[in-house]
């Protein structure tokens, strides 16, 4: 998982190095289009197109019979039943391409989330860094010290505020004074871990969390190397502000990504000779 995430992150960083030159709405539209086209190709080769063709013919035939014999109750009922059956068959034939696409789609969406869901903090905009620890660690495991690079200030400096109640965590306020992709270093005795922190470069992707062993976290936050199951750290998280846009901002981007990729796929299906 970690290796795959690293490859995908590098790939998307390269893609966005180009797409990032334009406005964000354009990059979202282009990526949605690419995903729509790839989805078409997957459907073309992973589905039984001949069977889908037959189902579509069945649907057409039964729709026609509904129209022609609307006074014949038996025929109407039979046609309706066949339409339902055809719908189920159509879904059945779409299962293989959906299965093929599901995992790549989630991985792509996770990469896009890092670029559309959150934005880097602005210079002098405060945020927080939280180290979440396993609940069974001893109190001494809370003594993490944060070393900040030039251009980042932490409060409190050094040791953070320790939470030892309903969870075990250490929290700092962070303020970026200089734009850049900074690396924060956390130390506890001999153990040393890092976390990236992005300030002031609006087009950059962020990594809100360096995940722990949780599979879901590893999928959703793929940019940084996760901690192993033997680590006392469950996650290190920076709170980034959500991007504010009704098109390419937090939460909305998923909606428009789905809509655009579906619309583009539907528009281009004759070009690729795909039956849907």
């Amino acid at each position, binding site marked *: 998982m970690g290796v795959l995430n690293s490859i995908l992150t590098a790939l998307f960083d390269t893609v966005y190095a180009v797409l990032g030159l334009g406005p964000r709405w354009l990059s979202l539209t282009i990526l949605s289009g690419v995903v729509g086209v790839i989805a078409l190709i997957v459907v073309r080769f992973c589905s039984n197109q001949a069977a889908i063709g037959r189902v579509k013919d069945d649907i057409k035939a039964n729709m026609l019979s509904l129209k022609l014999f609307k006074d014949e109750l038996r025929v109407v009922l039979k046609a309706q039943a066949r339409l339902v059956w055809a719908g189920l068959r159509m879904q059945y034939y779409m299962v293989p391409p959906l299965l093929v696409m599901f995992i790549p789609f989630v991985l792509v969406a996770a990469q896009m989330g890092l670029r559309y869901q959150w934005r880097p903090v602005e210079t002098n905009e405060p945020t927080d860094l939280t180290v979440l620890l396993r609940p069974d660690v001893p109190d001494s495991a809370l003594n993490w010290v944060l070393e900040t690079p030039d251009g980042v200030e932490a409060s409190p400096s050094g040791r953070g*505020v320790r*939470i*030892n109640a309903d969870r075990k965590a250490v929290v700092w306020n962070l303020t970026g004074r200089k734009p850049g992709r900074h690396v924060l270093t956390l130390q506890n005795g001999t153990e040393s871990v890092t976390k990236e922190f992005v300030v002031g470069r609006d087009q950059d992707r962020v990594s809100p969390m360096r995940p722990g062993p949780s599979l879901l976290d590893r999928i959703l936050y793929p940019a940084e190397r996760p901690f192993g199951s033997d680590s006392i750290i469950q996650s290190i998280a920076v709170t980034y502000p959500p991007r504010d846009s009704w098109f390419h901002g937090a939460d909305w981007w998923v909606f428009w990504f789905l809509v655009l990729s579906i619309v583009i796929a539907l528009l281009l299906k004759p070009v690729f000779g795909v039956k849907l």
Partner: protein
Amino acid sequence: MNVRVWTFRCGRLSLRCGAALLLGVLSVLTGCDRPPQAHKTSVIVLGFDGMEPGLTEKMMNEGRLPNFARLRDMGSFGPLQTVIPPQSPVAWATFATGLNPGGHGLFDFIHRDPSPPQPGPPISPYSAMARTVEDRPWYAKPFIAVLGEEIEWGDYNIPLVSARHELLRHGTPFWQYLTEAGVPAAVYRLPANFPSVHMQGVSFRALTDMGTPDLSDSVGGNFSFYSSDKDFNFRQEIGGGKAYPVQIINGMVLPERAALTGTVKTVLSATEFILPGWHALEPRIDGFAGCVAVASRGSGRGECIRAIRSLDPVTRTITLETPFDFELKPEALVKVFTPCKLYGPANTTVNAKEKPALEASWTAYVDPDQPAACIEIGGRRVVMREGEWSEWQPIEFPMAYGLTAPALLPPVPAMCRLYLRCVRPNFELYVSPINFDPFEPAITFCSPDNFSAEVAGAIGRYYTQGMPENFNALKSLVLTRDEFLQQADIVEEEREKLLDFALDHFQGGLLFFYYGGTDLVSHLFWGVRDPEHPGITDEERVKYAETVEHYYIDADVMLGRTLDWAAENAPDAVIVAISDHGFETFSRGLNVNNWLQEHGFAKMGPFRPSEPLNINWAESRAYAMGINGIYVNLAGRESRGIVKPEDKQALLDEITRELLDEVDPKTGRHIVDTVYQSDRVYSGPYVKTLAPDLQVGYARGYRASWATGLASFGDSVVEDNTNPWGADHCIATHLVPGIIVCNRPLTAQKPGLIDMAPTILRRFGITPPTTLEGRDVFE
């Protein structure tokens, strides 16, 4: 806030979405919400509330106000005649309309309805600047006709009859004449201008100030204070705020009382157990996010806290996120805590007799040895050290819980600032009054509707309530004087950013900018000049000797920025700096109702003396309410009036005479300088309906007592003012003139606030309507 105001706006959202395109086209056609436009004439007016002419002149002559001196040298400086009574809303309303109070209808901070609907109190006090009124928009009327005024939806009533704020300042503001003549105008934070009225035609921008409420609909703002100090008197009445007890368990700040306490009946697994005693649970715990269970160790070695994943009220089963760090056994004591709450106004949409308050959760964790805490509020984590103020924290107050109701009653967006006073030995957290979020304004405190967000996008979030310096927290001694000044400095920083924004976006026309810091700080620190002030210690007298001067210097810096900007961008601009009144110490308070009783004009009612409206109406001929007003209990006007109209004048003359004769037994000085009879000093349509019959002009050092405002009684006729609010200006008008400094020579004798509107109109070549009472002070 009346939550109906919010639900109304939410209801409009769907319409707004559907009609967005149409509105866009309409706005272009009608010219509303236009971007700032250039204009060849520029008039910039800076309003410094409460700047006193004597101190201003002294500091100018000492070289401490170089920019005021610079402006004086370019034109003129002098006193500016204020209004009767010299209260800020009254004065700024006169500035805005060019009318005396009889014309604009503001006579005091507090007005009274002399004959409110019955049953109820015989008179009803209300905030004079704005009120909440019912609103039945045209598109809701068919639904109201069919469905009634509200729809029952589970535990909630979805209101169809809505509410909105209504500005009670009457008359036409002078910028309306300007915009009608095609002159763009920007009016920043003018008092008594809430809600802002939109203007058509050209660019008009406005933000409101004094009179704009916080979320709880309080004009002064209601703060919250949380303390784990067992000695703190949480039952005491705190004006303008409320204190809540909390406790700290394992470093976590929790409410003083658990929502549920019980002994474990059955342990199902390491993270699941059955806990009886649910009858003690609050009737409604909505969602269990944030709830924690605290279990005592059997050996009594302390307590262990775990987050609750789910609470099942049917099976009485509690499921934890992670197991306690010791084996839980039956009969172990477990307490369930909800998070600490920040409270808003009553949620009138809840379908219950007693409406619960809107609430938002917060949690704090205190570091084991550092003087710092992590506070989780509004989905954010804020790390604060002792003595630190936070940035604005956006928060949402859910109106409804469940599956469907939140879609119809969305949460109210708001924001607050936190001040972590200390974490040990006691945890003490001050939360500012909850302000409306300028990014999502739930009420109309700006014009056009998106202007507050435009400003916030440029300068960050800012105080949206009026009078943002939280004087109530200092008056209640929840904040110390130093802490108040820290908070006032935050307001000051926001003001400076706002002024920069205003100047950056000004391209000619009118720019008005209001600065309230000089007023509120003077109220609280001017008293140090009085060596015998009973509310100020010798130590404070020394420590804060220069505090007011410090704010005058801040005002000077702001004026300097404006002059520099104008020199570069609008060299021909007319620049005027004014204040609405001066200042005097307030060391003795007259309990006017006690005085009326002592002189046989009034009689106290059957309640505690400090109870509001505690008047024996059957035996009182007059009563005092507001800061300067005395009303005759007039038959035919007051609902229980006893004075015949033909006896009114004799009564007024008698009260006037005796007030002027009154001498303070402690000092031997006269308490009252002048008494104004309303029908002699005011003219206009509101004199008969709203004006107090008498306005008391107190002598220097005196004012109406705190009890007088809401028609209460004090312990004695004259009392020492030991409140930190140790200076005031609500006295005889001629004792507290304001200032005028401008880059044009003043030609008029005794210029006054009432002259400002015609003066400004003339600068744009507009002939002032004959209804305006003042004159052009430059011609």
